């Protein structure tokens, strides 16, 4: 009873249930290399309040930015543990396939066996340049090519990879399909690369409407 009363008083007082850092708080620099390279910046920051580091931002060699993002995108219903497991299985599967390939053709030393760099390569290959957004002018909808920010293009690449790997038989597991899609994309072919090319083709055919863009 007293608990619910407390909550209601709090909502009444501040108008929202979420807590936020004030605007003048600064993001933490948790990576060692960043700390070393930004010496002068650190001196400036020594008298500025800093936000607490996130739960998952630890400076280990096992953390990769893209890998972590991918884990977050895989997650459904907040089951982070499961998605981390799926990601680990995916990387293992990539590693196994690549090792197998390198053993079958030992003379061909160029086979990349680092699963994480393959993942990064795949995401980089899938990043789109432009996006189509539909804009209504005079009662007609035009598909207008608009440029993308870096963040958005990374998001789209990872989303496409995941979407492609979720379209599968029930018998095939997600890590298996995801591993195949990542390997395909890393080598510059496969469904996701096709999709990206298709998008740039569409953008090219709609290039006459590029000046319709606003906001």
């Amino acid at each position: 009873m007293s608990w619910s009363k407390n909550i209601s008083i709090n909502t009444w007082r501040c108008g929202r249930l979420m807590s936020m850092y004030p605007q003048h708080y600064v993001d933490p620099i948790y990576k060692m290399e960043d700390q070393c390279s930004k010496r002068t910046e650190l001196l400036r920051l020594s008298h500025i309040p800093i936000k607490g580091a996130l739960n998952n931002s630890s400076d280990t060699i096992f953390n990769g930015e893209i890998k972590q993002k991918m884990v977050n995108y895989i997650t459904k219903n907040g089951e982070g543990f499961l998605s981390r497991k799926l990601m680990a299985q995916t990387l293992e599967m990539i590693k196994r396939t690549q090792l197998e390939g390198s053993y079958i053709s030992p003379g061909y030393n160029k086979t990349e066996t680092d699963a994480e760099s393959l993942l990064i390569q795949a995401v980089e290959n899938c990043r789109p340049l432009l996006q189509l957004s539909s804009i209504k002018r005079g009662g007609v909808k035009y598909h207008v090519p608009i440029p993308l920010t870096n963040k958005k293009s990374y998001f789209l690449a990872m989303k496409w990879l995941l979407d492609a790997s979720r379209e599968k038989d029930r018998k095939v597991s997600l890590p298996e399909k995801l591993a195949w899609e990542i390997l395909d994309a890393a080598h510059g072919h496969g469904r996701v690369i096709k999709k990206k090319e298709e998008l740039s083709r569409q953008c090219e055919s709609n290039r006459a409407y590029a000046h319709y863009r606003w906001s």
Partner: protein
Amino acid sequence: MRIPGALYAARGRAPQNEKEVPFQEILPLRLKNTVSGKADSGSDVACLQEMGVLFACLKDNEFVEKYCDKEISRFQKCYKVYMDRKFEAKKTVNQGIVQPGSNLNYKQLNKYMRRFPNPQ
């Protein structure tokens, strides 16, 4: 004798009697003390030329991006510069420092006009 209609037409329509149809002030007959910020937002069209060059290159090379590295990087750099400039401009607008001069943005204008409002 019948009077032709053209004679009436030359005189035109008689004006309304002002007592019968009093003037109504539907909207106030003075300017507002504010301006809207719509005109300052501007159009978002940027980097059209770079986009055209990029499309030409992509079409020539069958949409294989590795042959168009130069064009792609130029396009992305252009967009980044544009976004940075927009961000900076927004920041200066939000600061709302009023300086003398004719080139004022809408926030500065609103500040001015709040100080010297129209008489009621």
